[in-house]
């Protein structure tokens, strides 16, 4: 009846019980709060069934923040364990639990924080930047979100029921094969990643078509805002890389469930094929999460330097070039595989070449600031920190790209320090910058700037303390994923410093979460009195009110140059005529949510081998899809009168500020 699911699955180590209970307590509190405020109907109508990209974007960000808490909690546990577990002391985590923690940390941060962050940002910003009222496939977009959310939820379920993977975030076979990992951990990982991955592919298709088909009149490709360009370079990577992940996980699944021999040691299987395939997805994935952040910084730097982006065209070509070359460097993740020198040299050179377009970008940002009027707002602070860390981590990346060096530091903490410099210094700082920069657009008020600055300095100093010693530890021979080491290694003091750094970051993150709630509570004080354009913005999203009306643009804009809003402000382009028309928007549908829920049940049932439930949930998914594909396209209409009323209300609000 319940497959392999027994009561034992609910028993955990004491260190895990605390997390489980606090999570359940939080969930019960949340449900109680919503019931107390009688907000269920509101939640259902306005959020859970919505197909509005602005709402979906905000839901992405909410999931990202929750998953960030989880992934960050894992990171703190790793750091604490490594600071404590030396010599006779074995720390507070068993080695199995430690393996679960680092596997969960990587999986969460890449699949559910970084991926969610970029899709969240794209949902929020792209339709506004290209002057569209919607995305190309609103339902597909919602479905992509719900699949992402159900994958994220499945990893949370693994905290409570059973255990998570112990094979690292990419689950290399043969360790992840059925022979060496017979229990449910790897299956949780497979299904969480598989479901979220399918969601990413669907979202990728949606944004690709949105950008190609739905730009406003006059916006040719080379007049697109640079963030949209970065998305246009990222989405083909999603669409081309994620199917490889899907197929690879599919083969691993078949190995584990049907006894096939793709990646097994016996039967003629080839486990290095898994490593090749997973990195054929994995390396583009690195740029999938990085390129949009290049776009973010390319929006922020010109705005806060009061200058146009230096070298727009070179920036675009650099993006395209990086996107292209990201497909032919995957082997640098495992030079130690033992491919011939010719092969290793090819991949080494390709890897080094990536430094050129990246360097172009960095100089473009520097020249944008040169002789500009630079405002030291918190998005700019994140940019400076990004520039420092990204350049530094980029340099160490060049070191790693050389096979002889790589053989020395492969799988050491040097590598960990390198890619965290990219992932935190690049992606996460980029996300924070974007969050601060676009926050007033979608809420109508600012984040508390003082708290932002405190958080920033904690993050920067904490980051340097937490990761610079890892470079040294890597050279001293410390490998990644150590749950215990000998006192004679002399690593202990450095690990303690690293732990202190992690706690300074924890303080920074706490300030950020506190700052978010503080700003929401005191939103009256932090109101954006410009009504929609607090930073003297250049692109179309700043030309409409904050938060944007449901239809985004009352009149679809026409543009004839880059930075269209600056053109209007400087009198180089006419002020748009206010000729309103009826607006058609797709109506809400709960089908995305249903399919997400059934996928979650399906993943859970497959993990625990509950076959009947797996069949039922799979058939339910099919039924939902068929129902959705049998209906007519239904739209709601917003009449001219209603548009006029909404626009007039905004004008009245603006007047009251004066």
């Amino acid at each position, binding site marked *: 009846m319940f497959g392999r699911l027994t009561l034992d699955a609910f028993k955990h180590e004491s260190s895990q019980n605390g997390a489980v209970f606090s999570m359940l307590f939080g969930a019960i509190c949340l449900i109680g709060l919503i019931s107390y405020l009688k907000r269920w109907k509101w939640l259902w109508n306005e959020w859970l069934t919505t197909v509005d990209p602005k709402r979906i974007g905000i839901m992405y960000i909410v999931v990202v923040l929750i998953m960030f808490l989880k992934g960050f909690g894992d990171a703190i546990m790793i750091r604490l364990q490594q600071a404590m577990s030396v010599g006779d002391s074995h720390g507070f985590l068993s080695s199995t639990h430690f393996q679960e923690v680092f596997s969960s940390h990587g999986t969460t941060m890449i699949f559910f924080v970084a991926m969610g962050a970029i899709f969240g940002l794209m949902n929020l910003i792209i339709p506004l930047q290209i002057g569209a009222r*919607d995305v*190309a*496939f609103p339902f*597909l977009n919602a479905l992509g979100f719900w699949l992402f959310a159900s994958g994220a939820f499945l990893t949370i379920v693994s905290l409570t029921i059973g255990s998570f993977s112990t094979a690292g975030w990419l689950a290399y076979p043969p360790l992840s094969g059925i022979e060496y990992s017979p229990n449910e951990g790897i299956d949780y990982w497979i299904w969480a990643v598989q479901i979220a991955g399918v969601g990413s*592919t669907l979202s990728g*298709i*949606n944004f*690709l*078509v949105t950008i*190609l*088909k*739905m730009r406003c009149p006059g916006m040719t490709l080379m007049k697109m805002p640079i963030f949209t360009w970065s998305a246009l370079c990222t989405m083909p990577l999603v*669409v*081309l890389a*994620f*199917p*490889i992940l*899907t*197929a*690879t996980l*599919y*083969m691993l699944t*078949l*190995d584990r469930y*049907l*006894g*096939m*021999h*793709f990646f*097994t040691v*016996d*039967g*003629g*299987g*080839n486990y290095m*094929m898994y490593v090749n*395939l997973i990195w054929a997805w994995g390396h583009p994935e690195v740029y999938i999460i990085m390129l949009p952040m290049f776009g973010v910084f390319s929006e922020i730097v010109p705005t806060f330097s009061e200058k146009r982006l230096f070298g727009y065209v070179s920036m675009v070509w650099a993006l395209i070039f990086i996107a292209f070359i990201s497909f032919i460097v995957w082997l640098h993740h495992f030079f130690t595989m033992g491919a011939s020198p010719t092969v290793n040299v090819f991949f080494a050179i390709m890897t080094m070449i990536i430094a050129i377009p990246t360097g172009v970008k960095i100089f473009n940002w520097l020249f944008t600031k040169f002789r500009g009027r630079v405002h030291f707002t918190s998005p700019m602070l994140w940019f400076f920190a990004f520039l420092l860390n990204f350049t530094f981590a980029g340099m160490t990346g060049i070191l790693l790209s050389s096979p002889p060096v790589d053989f020395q530091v492969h799988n050491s903490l040097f590598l960990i320090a390198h890619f965290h410099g990219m992932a935190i210094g690049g992606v996460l700082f980029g996300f924070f910058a974007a969050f601060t920069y676009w926050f007033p657009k979608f809420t109508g008020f600012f984040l508390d700037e003082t708290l932002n600055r405190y958080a920033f300095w904690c993050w920067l100093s904490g980051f340097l303390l937490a990761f610079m010693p890892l470079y040294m530890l890597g050279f001293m021979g410390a490998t990644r994923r150590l749950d215990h080491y000998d006192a004679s290694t002399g690593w202990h003091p450095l690990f303690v410093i690293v732990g202190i750094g992690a706690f300074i970051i924890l303080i920074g993150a706490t300030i950020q979460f506190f700052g978010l709630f503080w700003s929401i509570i005191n939103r009256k004080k932090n109101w954006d009195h410009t009504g929609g354009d607090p930073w003297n913005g250049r692109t179309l999203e700043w030309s409409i009110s904050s938060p944007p009306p449901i239809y985004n643009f009352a009149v679809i804009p026409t543009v004839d140059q880059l930075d269209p809003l600056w053109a209007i402000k400087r009198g180089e382009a006419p002020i748009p005529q206010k000729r309103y028309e009826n607006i*058609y928007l797709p*109506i809400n549908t709960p089908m995305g949510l249903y399919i997400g829920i059934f996928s979650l049940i399906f993943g859970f049932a497959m993990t625990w081998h509950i076959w009947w439930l797996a069949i039922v949930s799979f058939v339910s998914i*099919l039924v939902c899809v*068929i129902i959705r*594909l*049998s209906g*007519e*396209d*239904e*739209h*709601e*209409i*917003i*009449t001219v009168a*209603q548009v006029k009323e909404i626009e007039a209300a905004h004008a009245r609000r603006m007047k009251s500020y004066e």
Partner: protein
Amino acid sequence: MNKPLTIHHQDTLELNPDTHLPDLHQDTFSKTTQGFWMYLMTDSLLFATLFCAYAILHTETFDGPSAQDLFSLSTAFTETMILLLSSVTCGFSMMAALRNKKNQVLAWLGVSFLLGASFVAIELTEFTQLVQDGNSWQRSAFLSSFFTLVSTHGMHVSFGLLGMIVMAAQLFLLGVTATTFRRLITFSMFWHFLDLVWIFIFTFVYLMGVV
């Protein structure tokens, strides 16, 4: 906001130059077809990955039978012809849809369905035979990759058959409208795509395996 309503303001819109049918607002037709091409691209990458796995593992027979010992070219050729023919009849149903002949559309879809179903049946018979002879997917890496590649295609065809039933029901109830036509064209793209994938399977797995 007003109550939700379905818009059929086709009379106010120009005919789509590709389909000579009225296009819904916001260019739904061209967005959908473009999106569907993108989807087909993701699907071909999925197959490409499985082809890679087959290319690497097809010699790893683990002392078991090889492609030459197992495959019959005549069966594979029959399957190929059946699937190609079903693509032709699917094309006929599209042409009938362009002329707005509902019954013809349904009839040709029916023929395509029968052909597709017989393809799946032949494939299943072949698989059953292999498993009964002790050459299942557990036998060797070669057979794992063979079964995965070919059955993934077979599953696609089976889902295509399911889609065909849904499509036929919609056409039967609604006739050829802008919406059903759009869905029919994406379906036929899918069906032709499966044909193309099969050509590769026939060539790389059967033809090159046996000859």
